[in-house]
């Protein structure tokens, strides 16, 4: 393979991308070297097993991916703003919407939420860490390297270009030769391993590590949403694992699952993909529901309305999510009966979701609403998501979906749920828990500015798309017809509004770091759940003494009884795991193995795989038992943090 085949060439935008990547990388390397931070980076971050730091790394990566996916989106919107524009050619456009969709869902939305779970869930249940901190680090690095693998396709080898759904036969070896599609398959596979491990990890953590006395139906609602989400992850991700593996074997080893030759059945890919894919969209919405519940209860200064109904509706949504996948290919021609079954099951999801919506409204009833920025996101979510949800139900009516399918009506639907649901929740959650993570709040003025820009931009971008869909504009076209010009143009303007909002958000992080007042208590918002019972910054062992739980909203109770998580009489040495570089190294090796497999360099791939196995053997013989934090150390830390 010659070099110009290896590197993507011939596109000014890609050259610009390469230059940008080289510049940013060298800037980072320079800064790290200049400030002598390499050792710090390794000791404090790359080898950490602390759930709070891992969570922060997840969120930072997710923000970077939001930036990348957003830049993709803006490029698409520019191309679609005018008829016959030659900003992007068709090949490049195809690559961009593919990476946009994949990056946003797999490498932005999920890691963002998992990052928040990482930080918040152990704190909310009064635990000192995850059940398996080592595995947690492994999960993070598998996501990180998966994302890296996917993203380098931009400059090396060429990006996948068959849509985030990668339907066969288009995505098969015959019609998409070359490494692009392999990047998709292996990047997702690599990060999928980590997601599954995280699901198991969180489930065990929540089931086994709750503070004494905390019953399942006393858990904070975000923890509940995490538990339900883990459940979906555990049962849905293996399907993706297999689907990706089958296509990989098809492409690299010549099997015939989804091919047009050898009596393969391309639609089987669609079937498997959506068996995972539909639960996946609920994986990214349920934690969002959890975040909104926490934020709304906190800033309405009121207990969550219908807590039990909220929990059961999530469980019901999770169960139904496995029974509706066919609504993504109603038009495959499986017959009226099959479509009827899945049409009805799809619409049923509206019922438990509606219960949640009305319970949030119920929480606002007779409340005292404080309009902080996190609360604004949560409030904006309710009406916006309902629009997305009810149009989802319209898509669920299979006979009507024959007209909506593959049109911008669909594009509008899923951005309404994904952005008003997931992205708003990410912003709300980040701003809400920000003081817990970084010891200071985000500036409210800039926070509100970015909120209004983003939310108004959002509606301006996507509301017109419903009408474009009804006017027969299909998705994934790189060139609009003149009849669709006006609405598309409006949509593009809105997208830049969102971009501006995001830019203000990022600026706010810097600005607040410079100017915001540091937190003095750990309870920044007069919170209701245990994470606010720790001092800020949270010591690495989280709780000096584990509280005993008597009911829902544990911290409200504690405040009433004047209790704290630092009871000097009850201190004991705390067992904590040691840092380790193994997860990083193991996943780096797996990354290199996958990279070699992308280019089908088999020997190299096997060589690195052996390296991974060696690392596993090393781990098996590892006798690292962790260390104890002594009582004296706890005392000094806590006294200092609590200003005693």
């Amino acid at each position, binding site marked *: 393979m010659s070099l110009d085949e290896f590197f993507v060439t011939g596109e000014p935008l890609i050259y610009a991308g390469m230059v940008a990547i080289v510049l940013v990388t060298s800037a980072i390397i320079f800064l790290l070297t200049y400030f002598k931070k390499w050792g710090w980076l390794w000791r404090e971050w790359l080898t950490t097993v602390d759930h709070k730091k891992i969570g922060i790394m997840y969120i930072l990566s997710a923000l970077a991916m939001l930036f990348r996916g957003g830049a993709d989106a803006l490029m698409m919107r520019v191309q679609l703003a005018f008829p016959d524009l030659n900003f992007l050619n068709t090949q490049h456009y195809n690559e961009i919407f593919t990476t946009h969709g994949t990056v946003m869902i797999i490498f932005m939305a999920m890691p963002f939420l998992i990052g928040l779970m990482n930080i918040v869930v152990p704190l909310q249940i009064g635990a000192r860490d995850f059940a398996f901190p080592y595995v947690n680090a492994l999960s993070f690095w598998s996501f990180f390297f998966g994302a890296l693998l996917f993203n380098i396709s931009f400059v090396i080898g060429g990006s996948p270009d068959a849509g985030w759904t990668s339907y066969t036969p288009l995505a098969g070896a015959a019609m998409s030769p070359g490494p692009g599609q392999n990047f998709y398959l292996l990047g997702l596979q690599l990060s999928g391993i980590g997601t599954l491990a995280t699901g198991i990890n969180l489930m065990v953590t929540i089931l*086994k590590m709750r503070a004494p006395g905390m019953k399942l139906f006393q858990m904070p609602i975000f923890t509940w949403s995490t538990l339900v989400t883990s459940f979906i992850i555990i*049962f849905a991700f293996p*399907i993706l694992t297999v689907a990706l593996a*089958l296509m990989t074997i098809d492409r690299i080893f010549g*099997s*015939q699952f989804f091919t047009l030759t*050898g009596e393969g059945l391309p639609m089987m890919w669609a079937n498997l993909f959506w068996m995972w894919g539909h639960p996946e969209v609920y994986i990214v919405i349920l934690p969002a529901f959890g975040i909104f519940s926490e934020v709304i209860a906190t800033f309405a200064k009121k207990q969550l309305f219908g807590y039990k109904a909220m929990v059961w509706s999530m469980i019901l949504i999770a169960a139904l999510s496995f029974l509706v996948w066919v609504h993504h290919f109603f038009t495959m021609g499986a017959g009226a009966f099959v479509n009827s079954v899945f049409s009805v099951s799809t619409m049923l999801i509206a019922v438990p979701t509606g219960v949640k919506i009305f319970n949030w409204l119920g929480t606002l009833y007779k409340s005292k609403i404080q309009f902080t920025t996190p609360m604004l996101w949560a409030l904006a979510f309710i009406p916006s998501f309902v629009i997305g949800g009810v149009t989802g139900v319209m898509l669920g009516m299979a006979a009507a979906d024959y007209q909506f399918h593959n049109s911008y009506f669909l594009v509008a639907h899923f951005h309404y749920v994904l952005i008003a649901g997931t992205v708003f929740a990410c912003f709300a959650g980040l701003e809400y828990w920000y003081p817990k993570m970084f010891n200071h709040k985000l500036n409210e003025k800039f926070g509100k500015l970015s909120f209004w820009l983003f939310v108004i931009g959002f509606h301006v971008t996507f509301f017109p798309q419903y009408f474009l869909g009804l006017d027969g504009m299909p998705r994934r076209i790189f060139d609009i017809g003149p009849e669709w010009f006006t609405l598309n143009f409006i949509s593009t303007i809105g997208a830049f509004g969102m971009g501006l909002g995001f830019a203000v958000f990022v600026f706010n992080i810097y600005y607040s770091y410079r100017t915001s007042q540091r937190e003095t208590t750990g309870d920044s918002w007069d919170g209701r759940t245990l994470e606010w019972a720790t001092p800020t910054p949270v010591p690495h062992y989280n709780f000096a003494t584990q509280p005993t739980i008597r009911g829902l909203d544990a911290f409200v109770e504690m405040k009433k009884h004047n209790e704290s998580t630092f009871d000097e009489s009850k201190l004991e040495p705390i067992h904590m795991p040691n840092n380790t570089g193994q997860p990083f190294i193991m996943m780096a090796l797996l990354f290199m193995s996958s990279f070699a497999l992308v280019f089908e360099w088999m020997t190299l791939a096997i060589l690195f795989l052996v390296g991974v196995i060696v690392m596993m053997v090393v781990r*098996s013989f590892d006798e690292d038992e962790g260390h104890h934090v002594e009582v004296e150390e706890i005392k000094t830390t806590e006294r200092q943090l609590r200003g005693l």
Partner: protein
Amino acid sequence: MQSNVKHTPLEYQTEHNQMSILGFWIFLAAEVVLFSTLFATYAVLFGRTANAPLPSELFGIEIVLIMTVLLLTSSFTCGIAIHQMRHGSNSGLITWLIITLVLGLGFLGFEIYEFIHYSHEGATLSSSAFWSSFYVLAGTHGLHVTLGIGWAILLIIQLYKKGITAVTSRKVFIISLYWHFLDVIWIFIFTSVYLIGMVI
């Protein structure tokens, strides 16, 4: 954190061990779904043999039955190994684990022989959708067995070195779960691939 409850098997005595075992059970639940996806693919692609031989032409009961008995027996000996472990007999544990491994190797040997035989008859991974799904389903199980064998060897070394401790007993217990689980999967492969393949 050692609790003093009597009769609690060693592998359950620390909280960490309990969590690991629970985590592994959950992992096995995920594995159920993983294999079910392969079964689903197999079932849907059944009959799509293109120009390759039909399964009923190639499948023979003798070898498959031998494989089944080998694996069932290894599951049994693995159970005995755990029994020995709970009696505190390290040498018994190691002996029965080794017997289990040998049986597992026997199973693998037959499986490899069988694959070679089928491909000589013209049914390879790439000859048709049906045969792709057959090889990947059976092969994934075989790969799991291989991994299990490698893993068990590591554990036997650790047992030699350290004897039965809270850590090693937990690891052995977990691998026993894994091994029995592979037996469960094989029962379904045996039934729905081979028996049904011979009937239809």
